[in-house]
């Protein structure tokens, strides 16, 4: 999710956002949760707040391979559109089909019901390139 809303950096927004410590983050505002050799991916609370109400999400089909740092889908909010970037390389083994009818899950529960894809991770070592929660907070806080 590059250049979300010109990446407005409002302290109040940053301080109020939810950034779970157990997740890893990309600079483009995706989160990833490693569960064994699988990774669950979505966008952060900060990102959903910046985007505003989300109306469509375009996700890859199951079986497709995504590569770390490359676009895997797009997310359309009422007023803006943004690319989604894969935090890790691997095969998409599940997509959150509930988002077709309920894209608002991403706004309401970005880390739970708003998950987007599940990836069978090729190389868990890639996780080391990602930000931890503090690193991500600093990134969006512009410190």
């Amino acid at each position, binding site marked *: 999710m590059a250049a979300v*809303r*010109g*990446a*407005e*950096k*409002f302290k*109040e*927004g940053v301080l109020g956002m939810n950034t779970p410590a157990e997740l890893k983050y990309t600079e483009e505002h995706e989160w990833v949760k490693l569960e064994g050799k699988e990774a669950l991916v979505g966008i952060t609370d900060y990102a959903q*707040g910046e985007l*505003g*109400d989300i*109306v*469509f999400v*375009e996700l890859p089909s199951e079986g497709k391979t995504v590569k770390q740092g490359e676009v895997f889908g*797009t997310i*359309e*909010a*009422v*007023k*803006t*559109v943004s690319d989604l970037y894969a935090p890790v390389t691997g095969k998409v083994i599940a997509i959150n089909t509930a988002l077709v009818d309920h894209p*608002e899950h991403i*706004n309401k529960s970005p880390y739970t019901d708003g998950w987007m894809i599940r990836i069978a991770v090729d190389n868990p070592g890639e996780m080391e390139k990602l930000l931890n929660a503090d690193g991500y907070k600093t990134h969006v806080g512009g410190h």
Partner: protein
Amino acid sequence: MSGATGSEKKTALYDKHVALGARMVPFAGYMMPLSYSGQLAEHSAVRDRVGIFDLSHMGEFMITGPGAIEAVDKLLTNRFTGSKPFQAVYSPMCLDSGGIIDDLIAYNLPDGVYLVVNASNIDKDARWIQEHLPAGVHFGNISDHTSLIAIQGPATLEFMTPIMDQPIAHMPTYTSVRAKVAGIEALVSRTGYTGEDGYELYVANAVAPELWDRLLELGQSHGLAPIGLAARDTLRFEMGYCLYGNDIDETTTPLEAGLAWTVKMDKADFVGRQALMEQDKSGIPRRLVGLRPEGDRAIPRQGNPLKIEDRQIGHVTSGTFAPSLGMGLGMGYVESALSRPRTRVTIDVRGKDVPAAVTVLPFYTYGSRPGRRKI
């Protein structure tokens, strides 16, 4: 949208928005509420019930002195002379080229002509108007002392009638009255930018916070919701209303923008008349149209090229998801020959060719705005 620079002005209601939990963003030099509860919920609140907006970033000028009406009329494409007391007139203000400097509302008030202009154009308009006023006609910029609160939605009258010191239901659109709203003196205008019934309330900054609080409290039982700029934009977009800087600017004329009804060639001479007459005679090269993509999951965005068989014929000037219609729609300029409804065009949405049809504006025809035919 760019980040805040720290030099943005605050409206008299800034603290109210922050207390309501609004997401504040820099807009046209002001910190303004983008949304409170969420853009879609706010949009629906205005379509279904009633919403309250802080529009105090808008600019207000007072033109006074003998000949003020004629002087303003000369700057507007629409007819302002002959307007009744307290009447409001919507009009573009044009350059000699016919390009639009701004679109505004002019009120014929007893103490002078009251102009309400776009926030982003306040300085430019002030210069332009002062340069064009004859001796003896005075210009005053009262933007920094004036607050504007809008009430919009089908439940507007149900909410406002009991809190007014005089009846307002009989007022035609584009008329105004001085009245007390919840006990506070205001210029009350039956105007808006949403397609719904509504009033715009101009008050002094000093009383604006008190008025805002009283309205929110009195409106509670009517479902009155505070509405941010995000929903204001989707509401106006669904009505096909032009947004200055998106759909109209100094390079577009009112004739191209579908605002021919605001250009009165038969009135006394006005700035831009010659150019607009010539354009009318020689043919209007392009027109602002509605664009409806095929399928319901493509959303046109501002700047997207419009094509027919790889030839660019125009571009999207406003594009968004239209909440009341449940689909992405666009507005944009196309060559006049291709501006007829149902003409098929292609929108280049981020490199993807999306087939679309030219469609009439407004997109949304079910609003509660008085005088509008319901289909």
